[in-house]
C-alpha cells in the first residue's frame, strides 16, 4: 500500500457498469500489470460519481483528472500516456460547453462546483467493498461515540436538534420519529430501512447503497441504540441486484469486525441487520404497506394511527427511515447538530440529493444544500436544456408531485416551498422537460403509472385513477369536451380527499399542477384539437411545404405509402392514410415537412 502513487477510480454504479464499466476495470488492471506498475497504481471500483451523463467515468488521483465517456478501448492510452508518462489524455477530458475548454479537475467543473456532498460523501471516493476504507473516512466512529459516550436520549436530541427531516418524501422530522419509537415499551422493537425506491427516475438510494453501504448500516445501528431495538431490516427492491450484493457483503464485513452482532464495541449493545427483498410495488414505499409486504403479505396500507412507532412489524414498535435519511445520521453525530442545521434553510436543514434526468445536458445524481434555487440546479449544475431547446417545466416528486415552471425557477428548493408551489420534494427525482413535451401527455404517463400501482384496497384510488387516466386519454386523442376537463378537476379533488394512503392522495397532483400551469395546453387539445408540443400523435398533422424539391426520400420511408409525388416535384401527404409515425419528418433534409 505504501508504494502506491496513484489511484485510478472507476465508477462501479449501475449506470456506468451498464456501459461496459467492468471491462474498463479489467483492461486497466491487466494493462497496468503489463506495464509493471501494479505496485504503484491501484485500480478501485467505487460508487457513483453522479455525473451519469458522461459515464463511464474514470478518475485519477492525486492529480484529480476526470475522464469521461471512457470505453474499454481507451484504457490502453490512459495507461501508456497518463500513468506511465504523466501526460493527460486530452480527448477524454470533460469539455466545458460554454467556454469550449477541456477541464481536467472535477472540482472546477460547473457540475460539481455548487454541490455539497453529505449523504453522498463517500460515493465515488471509497471502494464500497472494503470496510477499512469506510473506517479510514471516520466510519463507525459515530456509532462508537453513540454507544460509548452518549445515552439514547442524547442521540435522539442531537438528531432532533439537527432538524433532519425524512428524505423519502414526507419530510417528517427524523428525531421526533425516533422519540416516538423509543417511548413505547416492548420486548422487541425494529429498525427498518426503506430501500424500496419506486419513484421512476430517482436512483439516489440505489447509488448510496451501491457506493457507501456502510453508512446506512452504521446509521441503522445508531437508530437501534437510540430507540432500543436489536433487529434491523432493509427492505430493498429485487430490481437492484448490485445494491443487494454490495449491502449483503458490507453487512458480513461489519459482522466480522463485531460492528454488528452482540456487545458492539464492548458496550453491551446488540444489533444485527437482515435483508428482505421487495417484489415490485410502488405502494410499498408507504410505511404501513412496506411493513405488510415484509410480513409476506400483499403490500396494502392501513390507516394511521396506529403509527408503526406504536404497532409496526409484527405489531411491535418499529421505526422506518429511508436510505438517504440514514446516510446523513453518522455525519450529524460526528460533526454535531449545529453544523448540520447551519446548512440549508431554517425549516429544511442539510442537503438533498436529486436525480436530474430528462431533457437536460448533465443527467446525474447531485447533492445541494437545501435552499438552492431551481435555476442553479438546472442551469449551473445541469448545464441547461439539451440541444438548446427551451425550458418548459421540471417535474419533482415523481408520480405524487407536480411541475414547476419558468416563474418558479428562482424559488429556493426546500420541503415547504415545493408544497406551496403545488409540487413536493418526494424522494428527489427531478425530470426536466422542454418545449417538445406535452403536459397532458405527461400527466397521462403518471396516471397510467399510479393506476397500475394502485393496490386496489380503497375505491377512490382503485377506480378513480382509472377514470382519470381514461379522461386524459380522451384529452390526448382530441376527443374530450370542456365538461371532461371539469370532470378531471372534480374527480381529482375527490380522490385527494378520500383516498386511504399517500399514493391515492397525491395521485391527482400531476393533473392539478399541469392544469394550473398549462391550462392553455389542455384547452388547445379540447377546443382546437391540436397538441402545441407536437407530441400527441392523434392531434398532429404532417404537411409538406414549398421547400420540397421532390427528392422522394419521404415517400420511400413512409411505412404506409401515403406520400405521393413525381420526382423533382412537390410531394403530398394523404392525411386520411397517414399514421403520424413521423418517419418522413425525421428523414427530410430540407425542412420541407411541417408538424402542425
Amino acid at each position, binding site marked *: 500500500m505504501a508504494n502506491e502513487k496513484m489511484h485510478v477510480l472507476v465508477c462501479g454504479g449501475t449506470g456506468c457498469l451498464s456501459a461496459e464499466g467492468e471491462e474498463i476495470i479489467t483492461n486497466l488492471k491487466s494493462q497496468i500489470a503489463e506495464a509493471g506498475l501494479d505496485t504503484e497504481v491501484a485500480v478501485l471500483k467505487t460508487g457513483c460519481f453522479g455525473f451519469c451523463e458522461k459515464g463511464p467515468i474514470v478518475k485519477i488521483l492525486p492529480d484529480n483528472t476526470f475522464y469521461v465517456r471512457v470505453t474499454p478501448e481507451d484504457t490502453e492510452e490512459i495507461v501508456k500516456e497518463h500513468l506511465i508518462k504523466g501526460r493527460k489524455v486530452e480527448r477524454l477530458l470533460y469539455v466545458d460547453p460554454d467556454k469550449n475548454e477541456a477541464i481536467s479537475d472535477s472540482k472546477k467543473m460547473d457540475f460539481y462546483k455548487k454541490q455539497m456532498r453529505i449523504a453522498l460523501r463517500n460515493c465515488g471516493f471509497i471502494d464500497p467493498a472494503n470496510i477499512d476504507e469506510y473506517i479510514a473516512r471516520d466510519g463507525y466512529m459515530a456509532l462508537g461515540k453513540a454507544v460509548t459516550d452518549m445515552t439514547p436520549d442524547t442521540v435522539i436530541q442531537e438528531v432532533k436538534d439537527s432538524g433532519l427531516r425524512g428524505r423519502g418524501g414526507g419530510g417528517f422530522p427524523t428525531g421526533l420519529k425516533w422519540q416516538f419509537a423509543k417511548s413505547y415499551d416492548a420486548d422487541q422493537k425494529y429498525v427498518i430501512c426503506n430501500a424500496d425506491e419506486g419513484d421512476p*427516475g430517482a436512483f439516489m438510494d440505489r447509488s448510496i447503497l451501491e457506493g457507501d453501504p456502510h453508512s446506512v448500516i452504521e446509521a441503522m445501528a445508531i437508530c437501534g441504540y437510540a430507540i432500543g431495538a436489536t433487529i434491523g431490516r432493509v427492505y430493498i427492491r*429485487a430490481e437492484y441486484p448490485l445494491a443487494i450484493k454490495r449491502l449483503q457483503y458490507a453487512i458480513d464485513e461489519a459482522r466480522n469486525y463485531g460492528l454488528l452482532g452482540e456487545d458492539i464495541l464492548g458496550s453491551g449493545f446488540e444489533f444485527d441487520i437482515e435483508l428482505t427483498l421487495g417484489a*415490485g410495488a410502488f405502494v410499498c414505499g408507504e410505511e404501513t404497506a412496506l411493513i405488510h409486504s415484509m410480513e409476506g403479505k400483499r403490500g396494502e396500507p392501513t390507516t394511521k394511527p396506529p403509527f408503526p412507532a406504536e404497532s409496526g412489524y409484527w405489531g411491535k414498535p418499529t421505526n422506518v427511515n429511508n436510505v438517504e435519511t440514514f446516510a446523513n445520521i453518522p455525519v450529524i453525530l460526528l460533526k454535531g447538530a449545529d453544523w448540520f442545521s447551519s446548512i440549508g434553510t431554517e425549516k429544511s436543514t442539510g442537503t438533498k440529493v436529486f*436525480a436530474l434526468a*430528462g431533457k437536460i445536458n448533465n443527467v446525474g445524481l447531485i447533492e445541494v444544500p437545501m435552499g438552492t434555487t431551481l435555476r442553479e440546479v438546472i442551469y449551473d449544475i445541469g448545464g441547461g436544456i439539451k440541444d438548446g431547446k427551451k425550458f418548459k417545466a421540471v417535474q419533482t416528486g415523481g408520480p405524487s408531485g407536480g411541475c414547476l415552471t419558468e416563474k418558479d425557477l428562482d424559488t429556493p428548493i426546500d420541503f415547504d416551498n415545493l408544497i406551496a408551489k403545488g409540487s413536493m420534494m418526494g424522494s428527489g427525482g427531478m425530470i426536466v422537460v422542454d418545449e417538445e413535451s406535452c403536459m397532458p401527455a405527461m400527466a397521462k404517463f403518471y396516471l397510467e403509472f399510479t393506476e397500475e400501482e394502485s393496490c386496489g384496497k380503497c375505491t377512490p384510488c382503485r377506480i378513480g385513477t382509472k377514470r382519470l387516466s381514461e379522461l386524459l386519454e380522451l384529452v390526448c386523442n382530441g376527443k374530450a369536451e370542456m365538461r371532461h376537463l371539469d370532470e378531471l378537476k372534480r374527480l381529482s379533488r375527490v380522490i385527494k380527499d378520500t383516498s386511504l394512503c399517500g399514493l391515492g392522495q397525491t395521485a391527482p397532483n400531476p393533473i392539478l399542477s399541469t392544469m394550473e400551469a398549462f391550462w392553455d395546453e389542455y384547452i388547445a387539445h379540447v377546443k382546437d384539437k391540436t397538441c402545441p408540443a407536437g407530441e400527441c400523435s392523434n392531434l398532429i398533422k404532417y404537411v409538406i411545404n414549398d421547400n420540397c424539391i421532390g427528392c422522394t426520400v419521404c415517400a420511400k420511408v413512409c411505412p404506409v405509402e401515403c406520400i405521393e409525388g413525381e420526382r423533382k416535384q412537390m410531394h403530398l401527404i394523404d392525411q386520411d392514410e397517414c399514421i403520424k409515425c413521423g418517419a418522413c419528418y425525421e428523414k427530410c433534409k430540407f425542412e420541407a415537412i411541417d408538424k402542425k
Partner: protein
Amino acid sequence: MAVNLELTQEKFQELDDYVDALPETKGELIKVLHKAQNIFEYLPKEVQIHVAKKLKVSTAKVFGVVTFYSFFTMEPKGEYDINVCLGTACYVRGAEKIAEAFSKELGISVGETSADGKFSITGLRCIGACGLAPVVTIGEKTYGRLTADMVKDILKDYK
C-alpha cells in the same frame, strides 16, 4: 440455450429443501416465491398450489401475493427477455417509441412472449441508468441512448 420450463420433480424437491432449511416460515411467503421463480422461471398454478400447501397457507393468499407484485410472473418469459425501461427519464427521452419499435419488429406487445418462446418484451420501471436513457436490457447486456432505428440491428444479434 432454451429455457427449461418443465415442472420437474427435482425442481419441486429443490424448493422443498429450501423451505425446510428456513428457520421460520412465518412471513416468508415472498421470500419463498422469489426462490420458486428463480427455480421454475415463472409461477404457474401448480407451483402456487405447491407453495400454499408447503407453507400451510391458502392458495388464494399465494395467488393474491403473486398477482400483487410486478416482479412475479405467471407467464414464462422468452429466451431473450427484452426489458424496456419505461421510467420517467426514459419516457421523456422517447422510451415509448423504442418499445413500439420492438413490438413492430417482433409482432408482440409489451408483456407478451413470442410464439416460438424466443423473445418477450417487458416494460420496467426505472433501472436507474437514467444517464443512458432511453435504456433497454437484454440478459446481461445493456443498450443505452437508443433510437428507434437501432432496434433492428440489436435484434440481429439474437435472431
